[in-house]
């Protein structure tokens, strides 16, 4: 049995104190798991992962990473304690070169490890290796996502959280990004992926969690959710509220 890496306990959060978007989420993610977070627009998927990263205020509840309570820990310290987060947009430093992005991300590591980790990322993402001095703003959407992943993985996080990395990408780019995510997860990195494309998300993940109106509506193995009629109904826009209670 794999050990628990991330645990959310009664999490309530939102940008305004009197307007919670996440309304009591309990979730446990095991080491090595590939979890896809699904849900209709406005369900709170991005808000949930941003809450975990410390970008959205927690109203109540707790966030644990590998047993440590990180609820009130500032974002930069969460990242230093093993949380990796790739935002949906503006996830690279566009005015810096590819190498500078990696150097920046590596500078929280001990000096002796930095060069080796940069080399490891360039080996994992060969497209980036050949363009190290290119200004990142000149990269294509898919390459930007790859750089954003490399920037996050360079510090060997215990968990990698990606907020809709497929947004705005061509279908070919999406499959390339997803293939890379599968490889990253296979290398042992626990992964949480926020995704709009239900089918594509469930095909690459091991577990699916469906969020509706800030609550967990479904939590099951990805294979099971793929054939679930309720899931297809939710995403075809005709779901009934009583069917999605947690």
């Amino acid at each position, binding site marked *: 049995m794999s050990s628990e890496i991330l645990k959310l306990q009664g999490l309530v959060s939102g940008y305004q104190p009197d307007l919670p978007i996440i309304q009591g989420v309990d979730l446990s993610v095991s080491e090595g798991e590939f979890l896809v977070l699904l849900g209709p627009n406005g369900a709170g998927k991005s808000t949930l992962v941003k809450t975990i990263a410390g970008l959205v205020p927690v109203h109540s509840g707790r966030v644990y990473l590998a047993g440590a309570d990180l609820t009130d820990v500032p974002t930069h310290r969460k*990242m230093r304690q093993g949380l990796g987060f790739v935002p949906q947009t503006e996830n690279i*430093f566009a005015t810096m070169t590819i190498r500078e992005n990696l150097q920046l991300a590596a*500078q929280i590591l001990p000096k002796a490890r930095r060069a080796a980790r940069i080399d490891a990322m360039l080996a994992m993402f060969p497209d980036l290796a050949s363009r190290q001095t290119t200004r990142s703003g000149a990269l294509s959407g898919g390459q930007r996502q790859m750089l954003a992943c490399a920037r996050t993985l360079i510090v060997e996080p215990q968990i990698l959280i990606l907020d809709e990395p497929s947004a705005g990408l061509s279908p070919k780019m999406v499959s390339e990004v997803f293939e890379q995510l599968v490889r990253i997860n296979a290398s042992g990195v626990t992964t949480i992926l926020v995704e709009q494309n239900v089918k594509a998300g469930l095909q690459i993940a091991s577990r699916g969690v469906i969020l509706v109106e800030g609550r967990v509506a479904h939590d099951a193995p990805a294979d099971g959710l793929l054939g679930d009629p309720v899931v297809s109904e939710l995403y075809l826009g005709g779901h009934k509220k009583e069917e999605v209670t947690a």
Partner: protein
Amino acid sequence: MITQAIMDGLINGGIIGLGAIGVTLTYSILRFANFGHGELLSWGAYVALSLSAALGAMLPSLSTPIGPFSFGWSVPIALIGSMVLTALLALTVDWLLFGRLRRSGSAIIILVMASFGAALALRNLLEFIFTSKPAYFTNALQISKPLFGGMRATPDQLLVLGLAFITVVLVHLLLTRTPAGRAMRAVSENAQLASLTGIDVRNVIRLVWVLGAALAAVAGVMSGLLVQIRPTMGLDLLLPLFAASILGGIGSVPGAMLAGLIVGLAEALTIQVIGAEWRAAVAFVILVAVLLLRPNGLFGKATA
């Protein structure tokens, strides 16, 4: 005559450029125009003057002029002390005023207005402590020496120009080659992403205040060495500083220095060609022209 105006403009431009670096860094990272930056120049000059006087009183040999210059070792030592103390002053103002406003989510205009208030308070405090009577690091007279092409300059002026150039190179290297510099550039571009990269944004903000204030102190001491020290010296330089930082492109250190030299040259040539009474208008004309024609400045960041 024109060649001499060029030399005068370069020297004054070096001082403007150093001050403008602080303006451009605080603007790009804290996202507001700090109209109190000029006061850091004044405070830097007065702190150095006080330290230099104290050192000279304790060890008179430190007041003996070094080589061809008009000042003794007390001034360079006082300059270092002034850089530290001016940085502490900037951190204190941020802790008392700007930091509280940032944490409460105040709008940019509130921060700008607060900077006007801080400037008034700092300037009047200087006047209260030191009076408005001009002060000097030294009373020694310097004769300018012929250089080339009909240009003349005093050793102090040449030192100021050289020191400004070296300082800009050092700051540029700091920003582009060191982890601290990369962190500053990262926060300037995207503070949230910087914190997601493990960077403590609050530390970077402190570093920016320290760097900006230390450079302001250097510019203030240079201005005090070449002209005189007055409580309003920072206020008088404020418009040229903003003109240079906007002309150079917000966030660009080489841009701020180059633009400082351009503003300095424009001022000097205006004095020569049109008349000294138009000097103050030059920075304003440059500022308006840049905002109308090239709002990103000469080296404005191209964001994707």
